[in-house]
């Protein structure tokens, strides 16, 4: 259990954060994801299958939370304790965080976690076309919010992460 937790907990937590935008809910979601993992009795063919399962459960639980009565009526405040390296970093962060959740998640999975469109489709249970469309729309929204100088082109750092 510990090994599985150590391997995935940061990814789960950050994905949960990308959905909920606050640490407390992200922590609760992370705990619930691992509880499900440890009690579901599943065995996986490969590590990638297990990873996909964990990420999918994270997404489903996050969706449940965002749909919940409590969440809709107590909109969480975004954590304010992040220290940004530059005003641009702050702008980009807040622009992503202000995207609708489905766009935030696809941006996070693609650019931060480095999943391919096909992998995101598998994780999120959507078609690849739908994921591509969401990526397209998310980029457009970011461009709209941040102006023409915004670039979503990946650099070597991202590619390394993807690799």
């Amino acid at each position: 259990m510990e090994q599985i937790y150590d391997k995935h907990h940061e990814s789960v937590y950050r994905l949960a954060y990308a959905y909920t935008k606050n640490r407390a809910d992200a922590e609760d979601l992370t705990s619930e994801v691992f509880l499900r993992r440890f009690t579901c009795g599943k065995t996986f063919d490969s590590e990638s299958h297990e990873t996909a399962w964990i990420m999918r459960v994270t997404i489903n639980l996050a969706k449940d939370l965002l749909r919940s009565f409590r969440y809709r009526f107590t909109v969480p405040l975004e954590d304010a304790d992040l220290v940004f390296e530059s005003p641009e970093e702050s702008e980009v962060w807040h622009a992503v965080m202000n995207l609708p959740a489905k766009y935030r998640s696809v941006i996070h999975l693609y650019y931060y976690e480095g999943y391919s469109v096909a992998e995101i489709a598998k994780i999120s249970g959507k078609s690849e076309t739908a994921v591509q469309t969401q990526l397209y729309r998310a980029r457009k929204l970011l461009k709209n919010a941040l102006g023409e100088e915004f670039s979503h082109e990946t650099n070597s750092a991202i590619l390394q992460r993807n690799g």
Partner: protein
Amino acid sequence: MKQIQQYCSAMDKIKHDPACKQEVLNMAQRNQIHMTKRSGKIAGTAIAAALLAANIGGGYLLLHGRNQALNPPVATEIESEIDLASAAETAALPCYVSRMQEYYAGLTGEPCDFDFTGLGRDFENVSAEDENWRVELKAVTGCDWILYYFYDVTPLQGQSWEQFQQEHPRMEAEVFGGGRTDHLERCGIMPGAEHNPEDGAWHCYGRVFNSSAQPFFHADKTFCLRAQISTAELDTEVTREPLDFVSAEFPLEESDGFNNIFEAIYIGQGANMLGMDPAMTRYAVTPFGMNFFSDPYESGKRDSNTYTDFGEQSFMDITFTSADDGSETRMAVYDGIIGYHEEEGTGIQYSFAAFERPLDVTKFAPENDVLTAEAAATADDVQTTETQTITEVPVQDYEAIPRKAPADVPCVVYGARDSLTGEPFDSLTGPYPDTTPEEYAQFEQVAVYSRYAKLLVNGREMKGIGEEISPDENNMLNITFAWTPDENVKNQNISIDILPEPVFDDPIAYGKSEGENIVIIEPYKFKDYVDPETNVVYPSSLPEAIAAFKPDPAAENCVPMRYSMQIDLSKVNLQESPRGKQLTFLVDYHAADTSGSKKDVIFRGEYILMIK
């Protein structure tokens, strides 16, 4: 320079608290012990009760209500889902068990291994057919408050999915008994089902809510199933079956009162359908959902039952909190009804909330059986009374009454545009690079529809995302949605769903409740446009309607529809963005047939307004 990498570097700073690790591992270990116990490998009532409480409840906390009268769980009845799953591998499940599991799995996208054994019955050779379709009742399951039944539809002429959708062969169900009838609420293809017949037949389901305060079984009801095949005008009663599987296993409990249940359902209206808000002092929890009842109140009506459903994918959920360790199990409410039942000067308000997944509540012993006794007595009194059933459309606050536009309202206003740029769609190569020719053709038709819809805010037409708008002097936005379909569409139920932030495409409602920040938007169904002479709705399918669509706003048959509402920005929780505050919502335009089942969204408008 602003780059997406800056999001990544900022996200790197979000670290998971290391202290959470041990907590999670400890909880997981407890849970494993718990499951071991539930499989019967450890004996001891006290331990079992404690472990159960750690699961989903030695007691409930629900909304603002708290039940303090619940008995401890009965240890000897504890079973393990794991054991049940194992058993399922070695023995064929009854049809009602496997179908119910299939239903929930389709609903949630996750496997369901909940054991419904004992809560239903299977049927053999209960069917009706015409030359095109065979409809066979397979099984029924449920409780006193909700029934699910399952049937197969077999195409006898090799019909396609599209034909299945168009003709909608179905089995409708009613529950008769005690002078009262409960009608079908929904039926159709299983959630998440493939579009191809499974084993030569489509698996379908139907659902009947109990629209009164009288349990199904205790009033000695008879379950009567009727098969109706709409294309052949066959309306055949195929069977009447007693609900002998429904027992008092999930009786009513008393609570301190769930005073806000109606607010939760009808956010923003301030009052419920009755104009009063009696505390919901009794409830029943079953694996399928939760039912609430008020205390009886005086009513001027002799015999009336009024209810409405609050829609699929509604926004409420119910949290069950363990009295032992405070752990929570949150149950999303997928659908439900709300209403009141009045007889001989006495009324009871009720609501049933259907869970999105089953809840294991079999361990909770009843504290009392108050309503059961009352209901049985009432049923005897009304054996010969004709029940009046009225289904009401929820009345919206904000005087948002749709109306036909006056003749001089211009019709053609809104082009099919890229919702982000406002530019016309000339090709699909941009946002939809993988579009197939069939999808492309469908899209073109949808685009045709969308040219005849518009959104006006404070009298100004909105064309895309990011437009700036100022509220009026009272801080209000006056919003009008208008759509001008042609004759082919007006023969269908047309509805416009307005959705807040495009998060998960769920039609949800914002509202105003006790100072919380909410936008008020609810789906509204427009009138039926059934041919008054033939009483037939046609074309019966969306694809046909699209194919036949030839917009002509000058034609007499062009029926513009308008839906106006106001949004008070002082009550709205606007989103922050680098450009300022924004209001985001989607508008879906649907067509539906007379069964009430919503068909595909015809088109969608997506708006992000920058509030100045």
